[in-house]
């Protein structure tokens, strides 16, 4: 199985890091994967995205044109990628920032006010991790079975020891999203 994900938003929202978390979680499960950032003269506050392919077999084209899963963290990115999602795909949107709903009736959508949840819980800047919690809750099966524990263990592995305090914060944020109904 091959699952293609696009994560998009403003630079500075942790879009690339969110993709890396998925990638590392898959790496530690022995899966095949690729992670590709958009790159260019993009500034903080500009749009930014990354593509993650997860598969049980070697990845052919790492280029994602039609994602199975879209995680949108701002409106310009939502507008850009909404129509590209495969029929039957899933869209996750940060409803604190994206004021609209998807016009598609052939995809499943989840709207999570992750930026507000982050603020309320004193986790400003971690809306990306909150939304990832919801993603893992709702479509672990689509993401090659990457589950709660695997993401938590990825935090522990990729956050350097001298920033260990961040692990707990990330896990908290992740749990808020995971438990969000």
């Amino acid at each position, binding site marked *: 199985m091959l699952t293609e994900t696009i994560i998009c938003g403003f630079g500075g929202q942790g879009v690339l890091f969110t993709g*890396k978390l998925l*990638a*590392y979680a898959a*790496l530690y499960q*022995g899966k*095949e*994967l*690729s*992670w*590709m*950032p958009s*790159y*260019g*003269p993009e500034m903080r506050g500009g749009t930014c995205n990354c593509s993650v392919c997860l598969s049980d077999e070697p*990845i*052919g*084209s*790492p*280029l994602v*044109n*039609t994602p199975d899963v879209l995680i949108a963290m701002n409106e310009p990115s939502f507008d850009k990628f909404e129509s590209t999602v495969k029929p039957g795909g899933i869209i996750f949107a940060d409803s604190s920032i994206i004021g609209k709903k998807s016009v598609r009736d052939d995809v499943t959508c989840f709207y999570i006010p992750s930026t507000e949840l982050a603020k309320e819980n004193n986790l400003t800047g971690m809306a990306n991790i909150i939304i990832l919690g919801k993603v893992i809750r709702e479509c672990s099966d689509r993401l090659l079975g990457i589950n709660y524990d695997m993401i938590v263990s990825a935090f522990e592995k990729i956050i350097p020891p001298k920033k260990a305090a961040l692990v707990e914060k990330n896990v908290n944020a992740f749990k808020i999203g995971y438990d969000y109904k």
Partner: protein
Amino acid sequence: MERVLMKGNEALAEAAIRAGCKCFFAYPITPQTEVAAYLAKNMKKRDITFLQAESEIAAVNMVLGASSAGVRTMTSSSSPGISLKSEGVSYLAGSDLPAVIVNVQRGGPGLGSIQPSQSDYWQATKALGHGDFQLIVFAPASVQETVDMTLRAFEEADRYRMPVMILTDGFLGQMMEPVSFSDETPVIEEKEWAANGHKNGRKHNIINSLFLQPDELEYSVNERYKRYDIIKEKIHEAEVYKCDDAEIVLAAYGTTARVAKSAVNQARELGIKAGLFRPKTLWPFPAAELKEACKNAKTVLSVEMSQGQMVEDLRLALDCRIPVEFYGRHGGNIPSPDEVLEQIKKISERSL
């Protein structure tokens, strides 16, 4: 072996250190910057020299100096910077000096774009500088292959005393994939020809590309071409995928080969007999492998991120006996598997 997740550029830099590259010189340019950054970060703890040069021209000439002194050395850049390095590459070739040159291709001509491209195929394989000479050109298609080919590049450069290019692109450079590194330390032989001080123990070594007497220059170039003949016999590598019964053979290297492979798989699901020929070495070009891959082919389709460059080598290698068509996107665009599949379908329908 442990798998780690790394960007192509960083993995290349790590592979260079493990291959025994002692001196690295470069000038900043997108999208190869991570190579330099990684080496700069590691230079103290790994005992290598990293120096940011004042220009691409200076960087390649520092490589010329370090190579003359007998150490493994490398420079990396991206398309416009490689044009500037062409002078030094010609001198490296003319002086029979080993070196590894990395081109993380971006769009051109001119300043072009910073997005991935494959429009430097001709430059790499035909004429990266003035004079009669060749580079061995490796074209990786994954982060793992970038690593494996980096070690190969240093070894072949030393073996044949010539510059070797790793021709990658912005996509492969920026992408992260799982990769593992061999723990083996390469054996690097002492270079008896190096100009590093004769310690009053031998005649002076001369590193030079100047031969004012026509006969001498002709001789030296002929000798080099004899070496090229050996290289052509020994180094010609390709991946051949589902070509046994393929009537449509796609030909692509690097990033576009990944896209083409996905398109081949999709075509097979539709019952179209498609296959993929992926050269791993662009010079020498794996002509025999291509002919074998095309034994049942009615059409060859070259897929490139350019206006069509490798397509000419395909025609030459096939002696124009099989029609070779071309599909490309460029300017920083990457063809999608769907676009390539459309081309396959068109060819397939036409031949019905």
